[in-house]
């Protein structure tokens, strides 16, 4: 751990806030990507069966 001196709180909170925001953004993006992909697969599956069966 580097010596951050009197600005330690500022530096650490900047990193914390930024990485936290990025993590939320990535997390939400990936979660929605998975959800939509699964929903689409379900709809495609259903329609595929209807058309061929």
């Amino acid at each position, binding site marked *: 751990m*580097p010596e951050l001196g009197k600005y330690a709180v500022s530096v650490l909170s*900047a990193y914390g806030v930024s990485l936290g925001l990025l993590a939320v*953004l990535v997390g939400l*993006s990936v979660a929605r*990507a998975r959800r939509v992909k699964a*929903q*689409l697969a379900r709809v495609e599956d259903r329609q595929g069966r209807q058309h061929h069966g």
Partner: protein
Amino acid sequence: MASIWEYANPVKFIRTTDRLLPWISVAAVACLAVGLVWGFFFTPEDYRQGSTVKIIYLHVPAALMAINAWLMMLVASLVWIVRRHHVSALAARAAAPVGAVMTLIALATGAIWGQPMWGTWWAWDPRLTSFLILFLFYLGYMALWEAIENDDTAADLTAILCLVGSVFALLSRYAVLFWNQGLHQGASLSMDAEENVADVFWYPLLVCMAGFILLFVALVFLRTQTEIRARRMRALIAREGAY
């Protein structure tokens, strides 16, 4: 020779980006890890700013992407208006939240950096103020996408809003510079990368910028895929109802 417009086909876009996405994601994480660790642990303190200089490894790349994301949306909107490629409109939609978060990071880090420097969390510094206004533009753009039900109408209206907004964002930038010149003469924060940043800070910063760019590209690819799939799902369900 394949035309670049081939990638405007949704299926082709998904297939291509599916192949690229793992590589870009890995590269993004690697660059971010190297750049941030390098910057955080292995760079000296600035003689004037102390350890707060370490904030630039987040602030500068985020600010860069905040503006570039809007530029990308502007280009995508123009492509949609001129050539009417659906992927283009959806890519603009996908980029907006990423740009908004980048703007938020730039704002937050700017404010946190400013706290010890100015002695206050927020100063109406021209650059920070401009980013605040940019954030409002992002909010309006996203809200308009959400509010309109018909997908093509939403794409058309948001594209025009993006065009008009770009002009006004530029105007606001000049207005803000003009407005604040009397308040903080010369005291504005000079976290410009070019100015007085020694090589020792500059190299890790470059790596971080590369990391943010790659992260942005990866997120936009992923989110555009999601938008395409959501659109396809709506289309399939609508067709189901039509037959």
